């Protein structure tokens, strides 16, 4: 037993174990307090602004934010900064156009909204499928984060002679089952508390190591300054270069490996991430810039609009007591996640200067995705255990990251299965007790599905996977929510056509680039994409054409089927937009009950 444990860093193990144990314990504790079906699905709609905003932030800051952003800034430089910025800014869109009306309309889930707004049970089914679909897509990167982090913690264990380390799938299964158990026991109310605490764990885990690293190895700006040093020796002139050389000397920058992008392309916009397609086509740097600009815009649209369309984020708005609280919550969420997102890029920048060997790693934690976990270890040389302690803290943060996002996703997917499919479609007459029981079964089914999917994504970059989930949400849910809240003439057929077309087309486009890169039998497609950089850029980042397409389809089809606009549309719009104090919601419910 001793040599077994000696191979694992005790600090890393302790901090990670504490995070897991606290999560499970809090899940059990609040499970006792979750009694009613409403507790399970929307946490009794009584979560205070402080708790709820911490919980939303905790849920939102996933493995992609905690590990992926830092890794991507390290590998791609400036262009990757759009990810954290747009992850945070997407919330503004949600606040400006969707949060208030949706909360006033009051429904448990997005499918509830879809059915209520269009009086159409069929549309509920379509919406449910999309909840599950986007949800599963978004669980894959979380599962990857889990597998990678556990493999990192146990990397030096020797099980029996010759076999070293922990296989990737063990982490996926372990973390997946723990969270599934938690969700099945506590439901939404259970995880609200857990996620709120996990936000603060993450904030602490990302900021503290940065401050310590900066105090030892110079600050953020100096590290960026070092990236302007010209490698040509003997050409040093007076003036500018001397200050940058000083900065470089102060931070003791290590030599970059062959695989790392050059300083020039790394620190400036339109670098390796956005010019990949054009470079593959053999275009010069100047010729590839327009493609790069297009890629940047499409990425921004996907990320900003995608936030507003993520099912596990939207369901949280229903946990606010009223619309004003929903708005206040969003404000706090933006502050909480905005502060957080300043830090991950710092890890990327410092990792480039201090730990360039990560560029040589192929995938997972040995590559740039592992920079957040690995970087604190550079302190070990000078300060001994401090490095291990800080690395333990970032590991705990990573655990909090994928556990909280995964539990949030699991709740919304389970809610879709138990509340919408079972409770509304299969057995509309089921009792609340039966539904709660079903919630538990569905949690297990969804959890198992997510674990299975997690096995397949070991070689994908975490942040890219998340970006794709955003692109699909941006082209399906966002146009639906936006038009359904602000345009009274939208019909069910229009909304469904636009949503399905936008979502499936962008998925097909993204999948085609994945196939071209990974599958051997898609060689032809790869060659075609190489010679058509414009098509490749548009396929890799489809939001710029798929979002307008979805909106246009919704408008055109709604116009063609204008006789199908719900008869009580004025009342519906009033419920969406009139202040809750006017009591229109109660009136609307009464009218509906009389009508049936």
């Amino acid at each position: 037993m001793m040599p077994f444990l000696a191979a694992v860093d005790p600090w890393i193990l302790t901090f990670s174990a504490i995070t897991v144990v606290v999560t499970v314990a809090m899940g059990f504790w609040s499970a006792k307090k979750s009694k009613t079906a409403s507790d399970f699905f929307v946490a009794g709609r009584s979560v205070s602004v402080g708790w709820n905003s911490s919980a939303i932030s905790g849920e939102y800051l996933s493995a992609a934010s905690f590990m992926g952003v830092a890794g991507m800034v390290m590998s791609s430089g400036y262009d990757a900064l759009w990810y954290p910025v747009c992850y945070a800014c997407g919330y503004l869109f949600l606040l400006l156009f969707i949060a208030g009306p949706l909360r006033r309309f009051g429904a448990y889930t997005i499918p509830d909204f879809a059915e209520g707004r269009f009086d159409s049970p069929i549309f509920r089914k379509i919406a449910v499928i999309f909840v599950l679909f986007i949800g599963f897509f978004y669980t894959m990167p979380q599962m990857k984060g889990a597998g990678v982090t556990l493999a990192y913690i146990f990397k030096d264990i020797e099980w029996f002679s010759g076999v070293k380390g922990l296989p990737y799938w063990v982490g996926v299964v372990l973390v997946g089952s723990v969270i599934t158990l938690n969700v099945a026991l506590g439901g939404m109310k259970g995880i609200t508390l857990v996620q709120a605490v996990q936000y603060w764990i993450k904030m602490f885990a990302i900021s503290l190591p940065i401050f310590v690293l900066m105090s030892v190895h110079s600050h953020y700006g100096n590290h960026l300054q070092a990236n302007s040093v010209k490698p040509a020796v003997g050409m040093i002139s007076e003036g500018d270069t001397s200050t940058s050389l000083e900065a470089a000397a102060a931070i003791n920058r290590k030599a970059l490996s062959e695989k790392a992008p050059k300083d020039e392309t790394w620190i400036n916009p339109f670098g390796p991430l956005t010019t990949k397609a054009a470079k593959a086509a053999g275009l010069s740097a100047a010729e590839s810039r327009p493609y790069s600009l297009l890629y940047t815009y499409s990425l921004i649209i996907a990320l900003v609009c995608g936030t507003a369309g993520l099912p596990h984020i939207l369901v949280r708005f229903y946990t606010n007591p009223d619309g004003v609280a929903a708005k206040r919550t969003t404000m706090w969420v933006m502050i909480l996640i905005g502060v957080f997102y300043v830090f991950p890029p710092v890890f990327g920048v410092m990792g480039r200067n201090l730990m360039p060997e990560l560029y040589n790693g192929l995938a997972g934690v040995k590559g740039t995705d592992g920079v957040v976990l690995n970087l604190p270890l550079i302190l070990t040389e000078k300060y001994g255990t401090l490095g291990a302690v800080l690395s333990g803290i970032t590991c705990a943060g990573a655990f909090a990251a994928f556990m909280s996002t995964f539990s949030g996703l699991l709740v919304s997917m389970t809610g879709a299965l138990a509340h919408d499919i079972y409770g509304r479609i299969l057995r509309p007459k089921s009792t609340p007790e039966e539904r709660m029981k079903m919630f538990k079964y569905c949690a297990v089914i969804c959890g198992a599905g997510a674990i299975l999917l997690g096995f397949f994504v070991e070689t994908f970059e975490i942040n890219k996977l998340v970006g794709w989930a955003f692109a699909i949400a941006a082209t399906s849910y966002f146009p639906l929510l936006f038009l359904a809240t602000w345009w009274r003439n939208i019909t069910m057929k229009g909304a469904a056509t636009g949503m399905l077309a936008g979502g499936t087309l962008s998925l097909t486009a993204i999948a085609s680039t994945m196939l071209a890169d990974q599958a051997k039998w898609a060689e032809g497609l790869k060659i075609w994409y190489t010679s058509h950089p414009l098509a490749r850029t548009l396929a890799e980042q489809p939001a710029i054409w798929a979002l307008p397409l979805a909106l246009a389809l919704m408008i055109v089809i709604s116009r063609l089927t204008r006789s199908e606009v719900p008869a009580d549309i004025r009342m519906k719009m009033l419920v969406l937009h009139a202040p809750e104090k006017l009591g229109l919601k109660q009136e609307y419910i009464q009218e509906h009950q009389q009508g049936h």
Partner: protein
Amino acid sequence: MQPPEKPDIHSESFLHMLMQRQLRLSIACAATFLVALFGLPLFNYFAPELMATRVFGFTLTWLIVGVLFFPLVWIISWIFIRRSIALEEAEVEEVTRGNAPTDRK
């Protein structure tokens, strides 16, 4: 002077006014934000030297996107929330007290 008139909350004109006022506020805030968000890549594209100016070691564009953009978003959302809560209170006031809907703000 007309006597204060209670707006009919079920009327078309009330709904129209409600949505118009809310949408105007949302679009004004969104426009500010979008100009900044979509303007930045354009600056990067057409004025790369300017955006590569070093400020405290950061390039200008890195400083804006990596740090300064977040406070901008907070300011916009803070203004929006204050205005929209005030708007809702004014609407409730109009209906309950019976002041005719005015088109101020």
